[in-house]
């Protein structure tokens, strides 16, 4: 059990890093990686939301969307038992779950941990449109090669968040140095950030094949 969980985390943090090999969550990755402190804040917020949203979307997938006896809606409308709702409601239900969750986390943090809320600031509402959050929900459920259990899905969400944070931290370290370097004017800013990300992705390619 512990071995399996460790395998999922290593696989999703290093081998299939969401940012560097799956191209998910690039907008915040480039937008918020100028300073190390904000990179950590954003990474932590995303990890938190990703873990929770993986858990909740797994429940929605298994008890509302999938056809079968476990479907709650099928108890009211029997015709749904055979068809399920995956095809038509997948995208809308997941994005609504994530948007509500982000709003809820924001309200809870404001009440319970005002200091953390202040430091996360504008990053919290931005998480709704982070495609890594919706991406991990889809990869856990509808687009997963095999049916994942509740714990596996949640751990995968947590690991993906940690992978995002690792990539952001590395990138912010590089960009803090880049600010002091003489770069050709046409490559300043976003272009050189992309080229650095490419080189980082090349380094992470060395992990490929470690975990199937």
């Amino acid at each position: 059990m512990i071995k399996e969980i460790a395998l999922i985390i290593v696989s999703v943090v290093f081998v299939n890093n969401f940012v560097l090999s799956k191209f998910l969550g690039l907008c915040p990755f480039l937008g918020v990686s100028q300073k190390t402190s904000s990179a950590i804040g954003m990474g932590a917020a995303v990890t938190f939301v990703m873990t929770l949203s993986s858990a909740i979307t797994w429940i929605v997938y298994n008890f509302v969307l999938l056809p079968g006896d476990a479907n709650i809606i099928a108890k009211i409308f029997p015709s749904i038992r055979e068809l399920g709702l995956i095809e038509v409601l997948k995208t809308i239900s997941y994005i609504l779950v994530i948007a509500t969750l982000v709003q809820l986390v924001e309200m809870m943090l404001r009440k319970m941990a005002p200091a953390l809320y202040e430091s996360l600031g504008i990053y919290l509402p931005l998480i709704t449109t982070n495609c890594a959050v919706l991406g991990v929900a889809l990869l856990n459920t509808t687009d997963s090669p095999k049916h994942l259990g509740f714990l596996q899905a949640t751990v995968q969400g947590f690991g993906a968040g940690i992978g995002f944070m690792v990539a952001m931290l590395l990138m912010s370290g590089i960009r803090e140095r880049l600010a002091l370097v003489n770069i050709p004017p046409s490559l300043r800013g976003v272009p050189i950030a992309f080229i650095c990300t490419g080189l980082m992705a090349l380094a992470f390619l060395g992990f490929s094949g470690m975990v199937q």
Partner: protein
Amino acid sequence: MAEQNNLKEFTKGIFQYNPMFVLVLGICPSLAVTTSVKNGLAMGGAATFVLVCSNFIISIVRSYIPREIRIPCFIVVIAAFVTMVELLMKAYLPPELNASLGIFIPLIVVNCIIMYRAESFAYKNKPFASVLDGAGLGLGWTLSLCLVSSIREIVGSGTLFGLKVSESYQPASVMIMAPGAFIVLGLLLGFFNWRKLRKSEKSMKAVMKND
């Protein structure tokens, strides 16, 4: 006059507000699906459809949407069209194309370009102008996708639209993997910046000569 304005709404998306090279929005799908021109075209088409339809609907109902809850309203409209496009693509396009686009079709929901146009254009303008705006930006994005994907396909697998470019060329497969995508886009952005800088330098020199 009105016709000229309409034309401007359409063409600004291709050059002045090009989503990929000027606004640098929607980068995730632009890097992930550009392994071949076919994928790039399919992705561009799907996103353009969603962009045009959601712009149209949002600008029709814009006076009924309260300001405070506009973002959830936009997301629901966009998600409905994304579901439609996903089902249509599953029905009419070859399965291997669908498999290679994978989760990036449902992820059009969180594509920043669509949200950005809904928020900054369709919420404030008339339906016809919004449709033209959506079509222009969609076309601009599709063209940029084609540019990136044709470079990556030629260098990375030695083909274009699946046809071999040259018999003797040994493809550099790193270009169709993740690092190649980042480096190609970085260099292209650098190239467009270089052209812009050179243009402004030239106009500065012309101004100084006139003085």
